[in-house]
């Protein structure tokens, strides 16, 4: 059966580190970085990207719209 896999790209420089995407992600893909961006925010980054299903949840709750979502079907 074909499996759906996703990937997200986060604009680290525009991320304000509000953590709302971490709460919204059903598969715990996103974590907060220990490093900061040039504005001084601990940005979100896709730590467990292999778990991503491309469900869009993080992108549609992101107040700053910094997340882009990709999704592809993978033959298992």
């Amino acid at each position, binding site marked *: 059966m074909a499996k759906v896999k*996703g*990937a997200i790209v986060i604009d680290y420089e525009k991320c304000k580190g509000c953590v709302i995407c971490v709460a919204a992600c059903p598969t715990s893909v996103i974590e907060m970085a220990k490093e900061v961006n040039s504005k001084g925010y601990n940005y979100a980054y896709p730590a467990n990207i*292999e778990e991503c299903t491309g469900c869009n949840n993080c992108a549609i*709750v992101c107040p*700053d*719209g*910094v997340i*882009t*979502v*990709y999704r592809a079907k993978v033959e298992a």
Partner: protein
Amino acid sequence: MLAKDIIKPENLVYQKTKLMTDNVLSYCPGCGHGTAHRITMEVLEEMGIGDETIGVAPVGCSVLAYEFMNIDMQQAAHGRAPAVATGIKRCYPEKFVFTYQGDGDLAAIGTAETIHACNRGENITIIFVNNGIYGMTGGQMAPTTLPGMRSSTSPYGRDVNLMGNPLKMTELVAQLPGTSFVSRQAVHTPKHVRKAKKAIRQAFELQKQKKGTTFVEIVSNCNSGWKMTPVQANQWMEENMFPFYPLGDIKVPE
């Protein structure tokens, strides 16, 4: 399959709409304004009316909305956005006109303009972001502040005997004959964002049919004003704001 194989233009499912500019939003981290801006612009993009829409920005945190929304915008005096929108709509009846206002703007200084625009049934859409506080000026008590809620001018909580009761603007305008669609939504979880987007879409569809004023309230957080983290503020909002400001459609056309 590796992430870099998935990240290709043909697999793209979601990106920020072109109707939002690339400027960094001036809002605090986690503020609901950004999401409310984006879903409004997504609705305009999906309906293909970005070039035919004129927005009216308020005074408050979202005073710079015209910097972020890549459409024609006008900035109104404090509270007067529905009056300005009335003028624009009457000059350009074929354009889509909406106002984007906060609670300090719409429910305090702009109460008269809002109620009269809704009562006249102007064909405009009003998007009302309610966070129960004056966020921009430092978290003072607003007309929509909940009873017992702390703010910088009610540090022991809002005492309704002294400071009056909170104002439910959405229920108020729902009673007016000029409004056709009145709804209250939120944007703190994916489910609520999808519902709020649907409500805004319906509001613009009804404006297209010239059905009268459409009014969408978005209950939002103000984590800086409430002195909480964004996630805590969203939880506090669910526990305290939603019982007082219940979500859902309050008035729908028959």
